[in-house]
């Protein structure tokens, strides 16, 4: 599926998921599954890097919220990296910008 690309890597104790493309009802399930897999593998500190995301709607937000809940069940953390206006706007409109730690870079996210 070329609409969404996911890459996973480790930065110290954090798992970074680099997301590129568009996150909507069609592609969001793959991101959801990746997060579920990671939690199942015992990875409870996850950074979702949204810098490569060109579009995200409420379906994508729902996946992020679901991910936050899953890691919190294990006293984990989920942080976002995002500087792009449109995606930040989506987070702001729904008030979710207050719920997720949002960083400008992956380096900043994993240092927190």
């Amino acid at each position, binding site marked *: 599926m070329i609409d969404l690309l996911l890459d996973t890597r480790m930065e110290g104790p954090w798992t970074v998921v680099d997301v590129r493309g568009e996150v909507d009802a*069609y592609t969001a399930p793959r991101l959801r599954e990746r997060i579920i897999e990671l939690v199942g593998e015992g990875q409870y500190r996850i950074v979702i890097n949204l810098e490569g995301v060109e579009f995200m*709607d*409420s379906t994508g937000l*729902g996946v992020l*919220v679901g991910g936050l809940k899953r890691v919190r069940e294990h006293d984990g953390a989920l942080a976002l990296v995002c500087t792009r206006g*449109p995606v930040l706007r989506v987070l702001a*409109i*729904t008030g979710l910008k207050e719920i997720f730690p949002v960083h400008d870079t992956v380096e900043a996210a994993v240092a927190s």
Partner: protein
Amino acid sequence: MSARSVATDAAADEEQRFSLTLPPSSAYVGTARLFAGAVARHFGADEDSVEELKLAVSEACTGAIRAQGESATAPVRMEILRGADRLAFEVGASGVTLPWSAGEVEDAAARTPTTDYMTSLSVQMIQGLFGDVAIVESPDGGTSIRFSVPLRHPE
């Protein structure tokens, strides 16, 4: 289909109508966003409006599909009407009632408690985007959602 081939300077003052019909699958919502964005850019909508529009179209089309449940069969239809200084959108699927009520969309205070978290998120999104969003009853049954973006006047 090219929107560019339809618009002419001579027709600048006339209403022009575009429509797109898609099978009710989330696989095609991206296509609806592309189409809406292309038409809006062609008629001079600014980039912020185009981004808002793509969000609204995405939420609307996804809602029209999700409302049909497991066996969605009614195609999603998007109509775009180019007026003098606004581009008006209407999205729906024949006979399908969208997951948002008129009250929920127009007035946050009127939002009914919902157990569906995704519906709650999507209505927040739509409320946050446009001031003139409306849920209307369709002649063919069900409801559709309307919203519009301003167009710059030509120089």
